[in-house]
């Protein structure tokens, strides 16, 4: 048996263990954990090929599990603190206030309203690089406005997801591009324009495809359906927590050598404090914190388990085998398949796909004479679209949770999002194929 056979069998064990665990009705998180343990067990039990290998002791296997579990520690902290901030804001009545004001001001001007909402959705992900942060901070707010504009539940959930995905892809921060560029020792320079063109076009297309048409808003009925906001709310109060959030984030960018590095979790916690300060109603801070952690257990759990699975796959050669399989595809097949491979792999591994596939692909495209900056930018817009796909579906699940979606996840929400997703993927594929020409044109 060669190392190829070994890693293939490990992959097979992963798939089988996941399937069996699902059959026994275990949650996705537990099923993935079972798959990771199966990979480790198979690695120990199976022959590893002709070359000598190091001994792997049981304590070291345990160490790999625990180490893998810490891979997305920072991302989990961001999820928790961002959600805590937004939940407090909602409890304080801030969301209701803003939604009522937007509906009141723009109910007769759908086009302007949709463009504004699109940009409101793009900002949080653009400055943090996280689609989940977009959903958790402004997703519910924008969803409420869309509901008031007569956008159906399927369409508005699909739109919130798509805008969150495009916000994560939007510059200045695109974590996939940054991580892949860092892995390939490329500076994160020249990505702004291609990322902005692709993500903003994708966001606006999604918005008008899914919410462009709808019945005119009946102002009185819409306002009656929306929750009341405490009377003491004003625009000044409502904006204060967001000024703190954006101000602290941008301050680090404006004065990078004098402003202390706070980190996003602390920025969100300070924004939560700002919310508590301006709230006209008394907030139950500990109760909200407890509810937030409870609500996010699934999301955080999946990130922890993805880290473990990734570590197990790396240890056993299964990750390398997948990566090798992708980069050794014939170029035409690669062009034709990346639009499926990238989102699907994102659904499995999250940000870990950027170094896994991104780095070898950059090297390959560089070797083929294609523009690596433009190509990576196009992949970095395709990747986040996989965040509604199993097994992780992190942003999709967050959107469903935040909007209280009651329909069928795949036949309702994902199916509705399919057309804009395909258009964005086609656009990115075209940009990738013509990256050399586009690079000469826009200087990427």
């Amino acid at each position: 048996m060669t190392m190829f056979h070994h890693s293939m069998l490990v992959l097979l064990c992963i798939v089988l263990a996941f399937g069996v665990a699902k059959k026994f009705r275990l949650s996705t998180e537990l099923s993935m954990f079972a798959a990771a343990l199966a990979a480790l067990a198979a690695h120990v039990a199976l022959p590893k090929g002709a070359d000598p290998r190091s001994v792997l002791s049981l304590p070291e296997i345990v160490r790999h599990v625990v180490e893998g579990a810490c891979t997305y520690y920072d991302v989990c902290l961001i999820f928790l603190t961002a959600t805590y901030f937004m939940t407090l804001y909602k409890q304080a009545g801030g969301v209701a206030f803003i939604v009522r004001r937007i509906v009141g001001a723009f109910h007769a001007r759908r086009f302007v309203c949709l463009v504004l909402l699109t940009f409101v959705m793009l900002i949080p992900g653009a400055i943090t690089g996280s689609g989940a942060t977009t959903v958790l901070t402004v997703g519910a707010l924008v969803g409420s406005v869309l509901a008031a504009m007569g956008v159906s539940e399927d369409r508005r959930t699909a739109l919130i997801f798509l805008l969150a995905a495009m916000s994560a892809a939007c510059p200045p921060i695109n974590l996939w591009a940054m991580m892949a560029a860092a892995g390939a020792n490329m500076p994160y320079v020249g990505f702004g324009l291609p990322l902005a063109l692709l993500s903003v076009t994708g966001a606006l297309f999604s918005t008008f495809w899914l919410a462009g048409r709808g019945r005119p808003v009946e102002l009185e009925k819409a306002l009656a359906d929306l929750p009341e906001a405490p009377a003491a709310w004003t625009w000044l109060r409502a904006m204060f927590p967001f000024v703190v959030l954006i101000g602290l984030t941008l301050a680090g960018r404006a004065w990078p050598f004098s402003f202390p590095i706070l980190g996003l979790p602390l920025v969100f916690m300070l924004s939560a404090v700002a919310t508590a300060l301006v709230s006209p109603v008394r907030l139950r801070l500990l109760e909200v914190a407890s509810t937030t952690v409870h609500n996010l257990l699934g999301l955080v759990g999946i990130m922890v388990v993805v880290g473990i699975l990734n570590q197990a796959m790396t240890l056993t050669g299964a990750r390398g085998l997948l990566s090798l399989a992708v980069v050794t595809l014939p170029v035409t097949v690669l062009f034709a398949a990346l639009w499926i491979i990238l989102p699907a792999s994102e659904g499995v591994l999250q940000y870990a796909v950027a170094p896994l596939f991104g780095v070898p692909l950059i090297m390959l495209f560089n070797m083929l004479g294609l523009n690596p900056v433009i190509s990576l930018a196009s992949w970095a817009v395709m990747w986040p679209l996989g965040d509604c796909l199993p097994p992780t579906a992190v942003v999709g699940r967050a959107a469903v949770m935040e909007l209280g979606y009651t329909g069928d996840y795949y036949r309702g929400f994902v199916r509705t999002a399919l057309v804009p997703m395909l258009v964005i993927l086609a656009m990115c594929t075209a940009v990738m194929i013509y990256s050399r020409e586009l690079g000469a044109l826009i200087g990427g």
Partner: protein
Amino acid sequence: MNLKFVKIMTLLAVIASTGVAGKLFHEHRSFREPVVAGEGLSSVKKLGDYSKSVAGTINDANVYIFDSGVPGGAILIIGGTHAEEPAANVSAQVFTENLRVTQGRVIVINRINTSASTCTRLGEAYPRFFHVKTPWGTKKWRMGDRTANPLDSWPDPEVYIHYPSGQNLAYMDVRNLNRNWPGRPDGMLTERTTFAAMELIRAEKADLTMDFHEAELEYPVENTIVTHQRGNEVAAMTSMMLTSQTFDVPIGMEFSPTALHGLSHREIGDHSDAVSYLAEVAEPMLDRIRGITDEELLMSGRDRFVMKAGEHKLLYAPIDEKGWPADKRIARHVTTVMTLLQVHNMLHPDRAILVEGIPSYAEMIEKGVGAFLHDPSAAPKGRVFYD
């Protein structure tokens, strides 16, 4: 099954796993690497002696100074920039343990980013330690991460903005020492470390610096010397001599890009009188397409998946059944510095640096690098130091 029972058992399993892993993490972080300094050692300073900004931190590295007392030039040899590239720090240690300087000075830092060597890279499934066989037993080192340990430098910014260029880089690069030159005294840990190293370079009036690295075979900057533009003559001649006389796989020469900031080959040369060089050698374990990840791969550099990629012409370095053993990677680095010094002495006789005691390329390949590392238990106490 009773849910409460399942929960209790799960909690116990988590506590036990965390305990086992915690013990291993602690062992890794607290392991001290013995160094038996060569007879020619003049003094050992700390990086913090050159700048308070790093004094007392985990990156307050040992600075081994070999001063001949005869006027000449000075070179700084830097190991351990990326702690996941073990040939770098072991190559530096080959100098520390064997060096005798007869003219000028040689300054060596084995572990410039010690913090990075106290954890492995999350998701990469690295071994915690690596070992080299020696005539007196096995010598052990910490395997590390590319970036400093978050326990020493956290949180990261959303985007890392390089000082002083203002260039944007990925957030984790704030912990990547070779994206933080020339550093600043009040920045994050790695920025303070490179600032202290710059102070050292200026205070010791170094003429040249060499930063050791390893790279994946998919990476185009491979088996090469990257040089600041002021070092082009020396680097070109070194590359030609090594390729024609010594190495089976050629070593190239490349200019440091002027628009790419934070790297030693660019910033040291721009911010001091020293001419900066960086040497790269192939390490298959850094390739994302590698197979089983273990110490065997790290030390033998032999991987069937990487070989398969080579068959598809996807690599920038050759690889066959023999792989890229650590002995060969270390021997290339050590010999590159020796040849670089030879050329430097030829072109700058007034600033010559003459050294002895360093094994030749052929000796290291034939006997293994372990033959040139010394037993700390048999060495006089005054010559044993810990990195």
